[in-house]
């Protein structure tokens, strides 16, 4: 058993939960769809010559003048909702993953250095992290965005700033237990440089719990971005993520035109839910305490 490839083992344990497996498949389908959105969507929703404003707010299943069917209806500008959702999915995923990766790198570096160096640097950083953790992420993002203004880069900055602490905390905690192990001691005895010990010895062994954190935090980041965009402080209207699509259809919903808000909402829901289920399953596998 021990000779088994660890990734194969991980995979076989992941496969044990049928729900998690299903969620992973759905998530992969969503990612592929979002990557292929310019090719597979029936219409380019942001090419003005492609949309017909006379066909605005049509219910799902209406035939367009150009011969295709609006399976999910159209919005107030006459955009095909299906295409808009595919493009929106791409934007939501891109923002979530980008902020996740940057927050991961930043939090990991800070956490590892704090754990390795200890002392006053460690104390100050952790004091700061604890302080920030006592404020909800949405509040921090909201405060930053009210001061930074609207924009894709600004949303990503706000998401990184509100989420890096989760990575830093886990990275520091894991690194502290790893630092007590014999391989670090032997590396120190070999007089390897500090940089080399941290990058080559310490880092790979701290990764598993951080990957779990990253999966779950990307889910949070996507939900947070959608919320901020819905409030009108997130992405600009030129980058219509799922949150903005929902926000656009909000007022029409009150008049019974449910599809403009409803379908992007369902897409967002499936996206966030599958990420969370996959993240939970990864956490259960990698946390030996829960296995018994």
């Amino acid at each position: 058993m021990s000779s088994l490839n660890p990734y194969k083992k991980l995979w076989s344990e992941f496969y044990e939960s049928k729900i998690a497996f299903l969620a992973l498949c759905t998530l992969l389908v969503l990612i592929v769809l979002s990557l292929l959105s310019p090719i597979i969507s029936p219409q380019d929703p942001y090419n003005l010559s492609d949309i017909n404003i006379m066909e605005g707010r049509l219910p799902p299943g209406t035939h367009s003048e150009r011969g295709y069917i609006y399976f999910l209806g159209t919005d107030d500008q006459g955009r095909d909702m299906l295409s808009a959702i595919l493009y929106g999915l791409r934007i939501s995923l891109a923002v979530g993953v980008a902020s996740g990766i940057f927050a991961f790198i930043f939090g990991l570096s800070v956490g590892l250095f704090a754990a390795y160096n200890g002392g006053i640097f460690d104390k100050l950083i952790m004091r700061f992290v604890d302080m920030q953790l006592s404020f909800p992420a949405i509040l921090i993002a909201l405060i930053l965005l009210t001061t930074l203004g609207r924009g894709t880069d600004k949303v990503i900055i706000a998401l990184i700033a509100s989420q890096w602490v989760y990575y830093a905390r886990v990275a520091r905690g894991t690194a502290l237990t790893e630092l007590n192990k014999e391989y670090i001691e032997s590396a120190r005895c070999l007089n390897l440089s500090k940089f080399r010990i941290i990058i080559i010895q310490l880092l790979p062994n701290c990764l598993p719990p951080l990957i779990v954190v990253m999966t779950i935090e990307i889910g949070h980041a996507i939900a947070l971005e959608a919320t901020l965009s819905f409030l009108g402080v997130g992405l600009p209207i030129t980058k219509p993520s799922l949150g903005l699509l929902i926000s656009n259809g909000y007022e029409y919903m009150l008049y019974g035109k449910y599809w403009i808000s409803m379908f992007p909402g369902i897409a967002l829901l499936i996206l966030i839910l599958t990420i969370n289920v996959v993240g939970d399953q990864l956490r259960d596998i990698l946390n030996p305490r829960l296995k018994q």
Partner: protein
Amino acid sequence: MLVFIINRIIQSMIVIFLTSIVIFAGIFAIGNPVDLLLDSRATFEEMEQIKANLGLDKPFWEQYYIFLKSSVNGDFGHSYIYNVPAMQLIFQRLPATLELAFISLILSIIIGIPVGVVAGIYSKNIFSKCVMFLSVLGFSLPSFWVGLMLIMVFSISFGWLPSFGRGETISLFGIEWSIFTLDGLKHIIMPALNLSLFGIAFVIRLSRAGIIEIIHQDYIKFAHAKGLKNSRVMFVYILKNIMIPIVTVLGMEFGLILAFAVVTETVFAWPGIGKLLIDSINLLDRPVVVSYIMMTVFIFLIINLIVDLIYSVLDPRVRIIIND
């Protein structure tokens, strides 16, 4: 203990100071409210005049100094739009938000604990699994989307509940209340439920985990063996013990509810401070935005301090760490 409190107060003041600089610098850098106040036909002199009236012609540090000096006295300037003190505007809207937040907190307790307890006692059956799945939903669903769905089902499809506003209010102790009128009650149900979803999920998980941990302990077996009634074991022996973790997270949860009130108030057009913030951001009403943020940071620091103090009272182990 005293040292701990003093330490925390100093820390809190540093946080407030840092926030004020970040906010002020950020707000200073974006948008010019003068463009918004005057129409495009205004002359250059009129523009300069209004800038001077608002103090916007002074350099950054001087503006910040004036801001700091007056904010120590609780004066955050006049709203550009309503021309009343920004703090007054916020205090006018605060009762609506606090009312909503307290109702949400109460909802999350009275729904969360019973459901969590039952799910904990029958932790192996299908009800418990469903509850756990729903609590995952409560954690992961974006709350604005749930709010929209509530409106769609209860306001648009069934037409049972109104979808926006506070409804009829009644004045009591000089404050307007929604919960004491039938119309107000109808208005508050949906936003409060929406806001409490996260809290309900949280309390369910905590009480379920607490029950599962406690129910197999020896003192519970002993209480049963003594022949005590099930209800007495439940309320005196079990509930008392699971309440400790729940009470300690309530403060944190109240903070979360206050933060998410921004979202819920926007969805349901509830006239609280959250909606005021979003409206003020869109109208570039700087003094209101700044006073909202300073006020919220202040409330959070106080909540966190109280939570830590309660924690140290309830759990002697924390007290030792604090005293060290």
